[in-house]
């Protein structure tokens, strides 16, 4: 299986930084009065960037969760799109202000419209894979979901169906050790999603989700297996549960709480930077250049989003084809 080139690794590292910066920016931009439902990809950047980089852009399909910001950036979604949606602007390309932030939908990039969180995309991914196979496209569907969603019915019914029909789908569970506000073990008597997947006959493995190269390798192997017609598989990526971004902390504890400025050791950004430095690929000067590019992209996207118009009441009505009241013509 092809390893990432030095250039690819640097590019993906930059996407991870961009995802982190955009994630924090949208947490800050969403009005303080708003319900705090900007689901974060924080700590999951390597698991998402590494997985999405194993897809063939334009052919393969992404069934995202509302936390999949880093994955969609890897497929070419722009920072402006992210912030237009976060601010519910009319020009938001996924929903135009109808959905909460992070409900991705990009037909041209084959990112399926994202609905209710809690794993509804797990069966959607199986269906999308069914369609790809019927058309003999050799396309794989990559589905991200939170490990806690393996307690729900969608997970079990979809994995059973996907395995039974040998569908070309790769499931990537992000395991941060928690299920809502309780440790994972308090909500599941089985300690891993991979073990559950194995019960349905899927090849399943646990990997270090903060290791960009490991994630990419596992996703590429699983995707190739699916393309060959050898059916679905599941990757359980252990990801970091990082302290909440500043805005959430401020809201919960008030601004006086001191913040620990030291990044946790399992932060995928820290890990990736260290690996690249050890390989001699990331001199300080390059790191500074990358950070400067990320900052300038986020600032430009912020300015664009803030300047964009909010939707008008007229735009609340459904697009054509959706029933409002009377019969269609």
């Amino acid at each position, binding site marked *: 299986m092809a390893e990432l080139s030095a250039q690819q690794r640097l590019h993906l590292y930059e996407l991870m930084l961009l995802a982190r910066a955009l994630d924090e920016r949208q947490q800050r931009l969403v009005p303080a009065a708003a319900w705090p439902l900007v689901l974060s990809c924080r700590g999951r950047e390597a698991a998402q960037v590494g997985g999405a980089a194993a897809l063939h852009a334009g052919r393969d399909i992404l069934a995202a969760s509302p936390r999949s910001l880093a994955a969609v950036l890897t497929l070419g979604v722009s920072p402006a799109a992210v912030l237009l949606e976060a601010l519910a602007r009319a020009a938001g390309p996924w929903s135009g202000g109808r959905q909460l932030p992070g409900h991705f939908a990009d037909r041209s990039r084959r990112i399926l419209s994202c*609905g209710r969180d809690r794993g509804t995309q797990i069966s*959607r991914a199986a*269906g999308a894979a069914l*369609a790809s196979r019927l058309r003999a496209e050799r396309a794989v569907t990559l589905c991200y979901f939170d490990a806690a969603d393996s307690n729900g019915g969608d997970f079990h019914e*979809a994995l059973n169906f996907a395995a039974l029909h040998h569908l070309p789908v790769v499931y990537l569970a992000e395991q941060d050790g928690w299920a809502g506000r309780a440790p994972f073990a308090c909500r599941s008597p089985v300690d891993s999603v991979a073990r559950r997947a194995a019960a349905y006959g899927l090849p399943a493995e646990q990997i270090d989700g903060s290791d960009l190269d490991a994630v990419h390798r596992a996703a590429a192997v699983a995707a190739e297996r699916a393309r060959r017609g050898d059916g679905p598989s599941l990757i359980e990526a252990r990801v970091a549960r990082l302290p909440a971004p500043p805005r959430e902390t401020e809201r919960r504890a008030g601004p006086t709480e001191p913040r620990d400025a030291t990044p946790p050791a399992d932060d995928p950004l820290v890990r990736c930077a260290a690996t690249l430095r050890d390989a001699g690929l990331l001199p300080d000067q390059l790191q500074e250049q990358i950070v400067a590019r990320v900052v300038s992209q986020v600032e430009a996207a912020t300015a664009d989003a803030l300047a964009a118009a909010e939707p008008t009441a007229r735009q609340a009505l459904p697009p054509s*084809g959706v*029933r409002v009241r009377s019969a269609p013509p």
Partner: protein
Amino acid sequence: VTELTLIEAVRLALFEELERDSRVIVLGEDIGQGGGVFRATDGLQARFGRERVIDTPLAELGIVGVAVGAAMNGLRPVAEIQFADYIHPAYDQIVNEAAKIRYRSNGAFDCPLVIRAPFGAGVHGGLYHSQSVEALFTHIPGLKVVVPATPYDCKGLLKSAIRDDDPVLFFEHKRSYRRVRGDVPADDYLVPIGRADLKRSGTTLSVVTYGVGVHQALEAAPTLEAEGISIELLDLRTLAPLDHEAIAATVQHTNKVILLHEDNKTGGVGAEVAAFIAEELFEALDGPIVRVAAADCHIPYAPALEAAIIPSVGDLLAAARRLAAY
């Protein structure tokens, strides 16, 4: 033109659409080799293969979830729910996913999905093979709800549903499956979704109904006619979106209306039609809006118990006589 039963009309529509459009697939429980519990898909897997006529596990949430994903990725799935009573585990995927996809993606994605299910009582199916679930879906924006009463309408409406770009719930009254026969043309005709059909003209009062109610009203009509009560029968055919124009036309013609359905009275389709008439057609009424519907109860198994709950032709006759005399 051939005389077919309602279930044969379902199968013919599926056959023709599978043949016409390679994007159409059919999936459900034992629908392939088994041909479905009511034989609606008999022979389809042998003709179109296991990739397009798909046997699924007995798990409705997964059936609909998979169908939604396939629809978002370019197919036109027809999912069979073996009994409408079993649709409830799939309610989340229908209401939170299928119904919302076009709206939430600002029109970028659609969900051309049909969910077929036999529904209704009168076959001694007990609590879990008798329910009328249609009203639960008429409440939801983004869903179309269709109930054919005749084989002709069934074929034309199912073909329209499969070609529709939005999700359609297609409920077939199971007591009508083999009891109702009618002429069905062999050609590729469509019956439009959203249009009611005047099944009988009359002058004394209107019966607005759908599904098995159409046949109950047709049965009652000659008896009432002999008593000087001439009923006009409007078959709604589509429950969402309602054909308001057709409802208005019949109410303005007879000035009295009975709303008949086998679903429970509270919150049934009749309640919505009654509200529409009260809001928009108050001046046209010469009597109270009358609902004939099931008691607000579950459907029990024993024949005497079941008959006590669901509306009968006798109930309709009595209601029509009272309203005619008003």
